[in-house]
């Protein structure tokens, strides 16, 4: 027996541990709002990637994103008035144009040349208003993530926004691994074949794709209903697919559907099935909250508003279950600060996503972990 005691257990996380509160890149396009939320009537207050914004439209209908703090005493411009092409501060009436330049000051004949609030690059695309809060010189509109199904005539559907009380990466994790459907969404889309089926993970550039086929299975209630919308009275087995594509920084399109079993869907003939795209784009609000914009788009029964409404309501119910889980998960993370994340094989898609985001953060000179609560920003 030796008299030396073993060294104390290491308390530092293993070097490969996944960050629990993941930082978000700033040099990226994020959805700030649905197009209809931004109006020329009154400004919309929303925090995007840590930056409080006042979103409004000028007289040409162009969406504008200004910092939500007056140059003078930082009163929130989102509580102000839109006067044609200008936004007026609610406090002392300073006015700003779309570029953020002050155009009017009270009680003086000149305008202080320094009086400017930041105006952020905005692109309107796919029914969304996208903003770039990072270095404006890097804001290239061609890098807005592809969500073309949102306003393509071959697709119909609608969606909503969830204000999720969790770090945005938890939502990405959730969407990149759909085995959770079996447990979280057992009454609608879950089924045990999800965790039994093999899946492939590929990555290229800023995208990651997870593909899963479940052949010759009984359709869960959600999919049986959809099949019957297109094929009235349908009974029997289906081939089901989920092809999840992530595009940096935080857009996930999920090509989902089922087709009559054995009719060639895995080989490319989806004519005997129904196909939807779950369009998800998650915008960090703070380190611990995010705006989760989702929509369900379909390429069948395009003219049925009933189906649009039913699908929106159905998905709302499903995502409500995710919302509860994500909030609970975030609370457990905060309540167990000494505990680390460990990964399973099913996390491969989510871990590639992290790797891409880590690369983007490194390019901005920032770490992947956001500071712990109470340690500032």
């Amino acid at each position: 027996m030796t008299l030396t005691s073993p060294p104390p257990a290491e308390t530092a996380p293993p070097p490969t541990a996944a960050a629990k509160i993941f930082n978000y890149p700033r040099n990226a396009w994020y959805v700030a709002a649905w197009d209809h939320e931004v109006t020329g009537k009154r400004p919309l207050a929303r925090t995007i990637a840590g930056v409080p914004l006042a979103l409004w439209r000028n007289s040409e209908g162009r969406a504008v994103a200004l910092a939500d703090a007056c140059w003078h005493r930082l009163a929130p411009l989102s509580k102000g008035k839109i006067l044609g092409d200008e936004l007026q501060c609610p406090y002392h009436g300073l006015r700003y144009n779309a570029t953020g330049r002050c155009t009017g000051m009270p009680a003086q004949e000149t305008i202080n040349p320094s009086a400017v609030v930041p105006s952020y690059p905005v692109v309107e695309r796919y029914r969304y208003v996208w903003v770039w809060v990072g270095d404006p010189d890097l804001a290239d509109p061609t890098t807005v993530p592809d969500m073309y199904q949102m306003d393509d005539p071959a697709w119909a559907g609608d969606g909503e926004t969830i204000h999720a009380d969790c770090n945005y990466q938890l939502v990405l994790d959730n969407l990149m691994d759909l085995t959770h459907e079996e447990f979280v969404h057992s009454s609608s889309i879950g089924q045990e074949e999800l965790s039994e089926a093999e899946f492939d993970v590929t990555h290229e550039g800023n995208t990651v794709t997870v593909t899963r086929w479940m052949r010759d299975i009984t359709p869960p209630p959600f999919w049986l209903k959809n099949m019957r919308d297109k094929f009235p009275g349908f009974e029997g087995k289906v081939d089901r697919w989920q092809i999840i594509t992530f595009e940096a920084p935080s857009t996930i399109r999920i090509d989902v559907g089922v087709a009559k079993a054995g009719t060639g869907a895995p080989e490319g003939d989806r004519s005997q099935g129904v196909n939807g795209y779950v369009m998800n784009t998650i915008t960090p609000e703070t380190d611990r909250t995010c705006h989760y914009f989702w929509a369900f788009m379909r390429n069948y029964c395009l003219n049925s508003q009933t189906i649009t409404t039913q699908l929106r309501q159905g998905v709302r119910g499903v995502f409500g279950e995710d919302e509860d889980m994500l909030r609970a998960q975030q609370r457990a993370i905060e309540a167990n600060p000494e505990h680390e994340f460990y990964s399973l094989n099913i996390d491969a898609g989510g871990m590639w996503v992290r790797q891409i985001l880590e690369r983007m953060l490194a390019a901005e000179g920032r770490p992947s972990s956001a500071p712990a609560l109470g340690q500032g920003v």
Partner: protein
Amino acid sequence: MVVQAQTRWQRARVVELADVADGVRRIVVEPEYPEHAAPGTHIDVETGNGTRRVRSYSVVRSEGRGRRLTLSVQLSPTSRGGSAAMHRLRVGDELTVTGPLQSFPLAVGATRYVLVAGGIGVTALVAMASALRRRGADYELVLVGRSRAVMAYLDDLVAEHGDRVRVHVDDEGTSLAVDDLVAGIAQAPASAATELYMCGPIGLMDAIARSWDEHDLPTTNLRFETFGSSGRHPAEEFLVRLPQLDREITVAPDTSILDALEAAGVDTLSECRKGECGLCLAKVVGATGTIDHRDVFLSESQKEHSNSLCLCVSRAVAAGSGPNQHAVISLHLT
């Protein structure tokens, strides 16, 4: 883009010095807490020994996310006086500086940009021009100077921007015709969406502003920065009388009224110290000589008709030219 109005004071070490034009020295510093300096930013530098003498210098270049900041300082008898101290710096010296401060941001989304640099004012526009080139924006860079020898970065800018640069040199007979420049902007298709950024002597900026007005171009598309460092007249010594306090204070050519009052222990109120905010406004109750306002707070008509001035930048010059004649202004402080 973040408007950085406040930042901590910190140490910065001088790591490189070079003369880039007659009387213009490039000074590269490494700040203690690096922070990327976006186009249009400046840093404030304490140039007095422990006093609150602060001078603002545009950041010509920010490298390594602000680890190396390039300033350029013109040694000028008519400047606010910090330039001599800056020209005495040696490699290894330390300065007390702020992080990057932004009061001249380059907007996003104008259809066309025209940058006009007069003399040392080019320092505020070098980084902007590079940013516009990287963005693939439609821009023009107009460089104005008395002679090529005093125009800093001229060759570099021509090399970087090629056909987009127009050079106007007084002693070569190619002086800038301000009205032609502005008329050209007004007649171009994108006139209402063209922004002009200028930094240079007050005379040049006044002329551009007047012409801009005459051509009915949108006032808010005219962007400028002035550190209150140039006037219509060369700086000279003058006297300030304060009847309220029964005091008389001399203002040397290399200092401001505000600095002189502070040094004399007079209570003053001020903020921007570059003639923008109007907080230090004082009433002129009497004057011999001419007031050289140098501020951008008062309108032209206020400068002409009112009896106020900005303590931080306004000066007085004697009417006569005798060696011992100084202008005297009497001020009523708030």
